[in-house]
């Protein structure tokens, strides 16, 4: 037993990936990214480092926007949103993401909700973290069936793009020049071979893949205390689940 759950590891990893940012926007139905952002905010406050601002989209209480739904996008284009999370029904080895569906568009066999703001945010937010807990060949495909937003672009103004890919199993970096992911680390309980088997696209990997950095005792304490408290305001069900997992582990 590593002394932390897989979810706690992911949250702590998100906090590390966000390190240095001033403003992150997270979705109202995205508790893990929100938890990571809250962990970073709390530990920066304790260390008297830069203040972290978290906009929870769609929330009435934790929404600091006053100009309607367009403000997230304007704010992003102004360079005031440093980090954002995107997922996808499919993600391929060039970091293209598909939020639309599988099969031939438009009459896709499986239809997901749609692109939302991805065809804008992916281009303009400097640090986009691709986050998908499910790590399987059906998600991580050689080539997406529909490009909601491409991983890289040539010949256009594009200040933003993929910074990392985080899953329930591993953490990848993305090289924009090579247009390829490289495996940075594997979460406790998994091997590099597990990741290779569960990933449908090719990627680079070091000979010896390290384990994803375990959350420090201090980080775990903040996460289990203050952050879980903060989470219960906007994500009560998720906060309960975290508490439950902890009891089971104990």
């Amino acid at each position: 037993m590593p002394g932390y759950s897989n979810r706690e590891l992911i949250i702590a990893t998100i906090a590390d990936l966000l390190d240095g940012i001033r403003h992150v926007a997270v979705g109202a139905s995205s508790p893990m990214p929100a938890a990571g952002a809250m962990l970073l905010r709390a530990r920066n406050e304790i260390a008297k480092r830069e203040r972290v601002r978290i906009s929870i989209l769609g929330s009435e209480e934790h929404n600091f926007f006053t100009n309607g739904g367009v403000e997230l996008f304007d704010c992003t284009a102004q360079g005031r949103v440093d980090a954002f999370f995107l997922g996808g029904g499919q993600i391929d080895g060039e970091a293209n993401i598909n939020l639309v569906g599988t099969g031939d568009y438009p009459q896709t066999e499986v239809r997901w909700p749609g692109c939302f703001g991805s065809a804008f945010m992916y281009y303009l937010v400097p640090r986009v973290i691709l986050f998908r807990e499910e790590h399987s060949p059906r998600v991580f495909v050689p080539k997406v069936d529909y490009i909601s937003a491409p991983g890289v672009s040539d010949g256009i103004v594009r200040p933003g793009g993929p910074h990392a890919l985080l899953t329930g199993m591993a953490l990848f970096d993305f090289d924009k020049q090579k247009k390829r992911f490289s495996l940075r680390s594997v979460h406790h309980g998994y091997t590099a071979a597990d990741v290779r088997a569960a990933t449908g696209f090719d990627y680079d990997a070091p000979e010896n893949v390290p384990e994803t950095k375990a959350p420090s005792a201090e980080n775990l304490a903040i996460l289990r205390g203050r952050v879980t408290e903060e989470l219960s305001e906007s994500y009560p069900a998720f906060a309960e689940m975290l508490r439950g997992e902890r009891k089971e582990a104990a």
Partner: protein
Amino acid sequence: MGEIVSLEELAAEVQPGCKLAVPADYCGVAMSATAAIIANRPKNLHVVCVPVTGMQGDMLIGEGLVGTLETSAVTLGEAGGAPRFQDAVRKGSFKLMDATCPAVHSGLIAGQKGVPFLPIRGIIGSDLLKTRTDWKTIQNPFSDEEDPIIVVPAIQPDVSIFHAPEADRFGNVRIGRRRELLTMAQASKATIVTVERISEESLLKTEDSAAGVLPALYVTKIAVAPRGAWPLPLWGEYGVDTAEVARYAAMARTPEGFAAYMDGFARRLREAA
């Protein structure tokens, strides 16, 4: 302008073939009015979702009233995918204009400003462009280097519809921070609004209240519909009825289940009010 009428008279504004703008769930969706619209069976609607839709769009699709759907997403939120939407997509039952949220906002702002288009960054390289042939790529006229940028055409709905907490008897409507409702209304030829209640006092009376008001100038008709967003939420008033949306999500998986749900929907709206 801002005339207060019955729900039926309000619903009659939505004519067959019209371009109808509807807001996202967090902005106040006119569900009571949707039932009244469905009763009139206006076919071949071009529904513009600002910028996404949920149960309302799914219902209009399920009823076979949608000819064109322009949206950045359709989802029932926590209750999952929108079943009638997914089914209709598979069958190719309507023209699908997939979008991305900021492009919908930009199109409406172009409509609001009476200009033919607005430029927007991003999008280039997305498969959206394969079907959104109404979006064009132009050279940025202010760059000496090659700098392609997307321009999206103005969106000018015939009718926009939403649900709000309050209107005053002069026809002004409280929209708070939901500024997209103002943009949507200004871009539209007509705007119809259902409200929880009518205030005797002008909403423009104080600086504070005036800041969050859609003026009567842009409001065609208003109808009172208590709990008119149910089972969806209304900001500052009530939350989503999670169980009811889940019940819809489950039943609407099949055409028969959807028909059964809709059978009792108008009645349950009255009970919920």
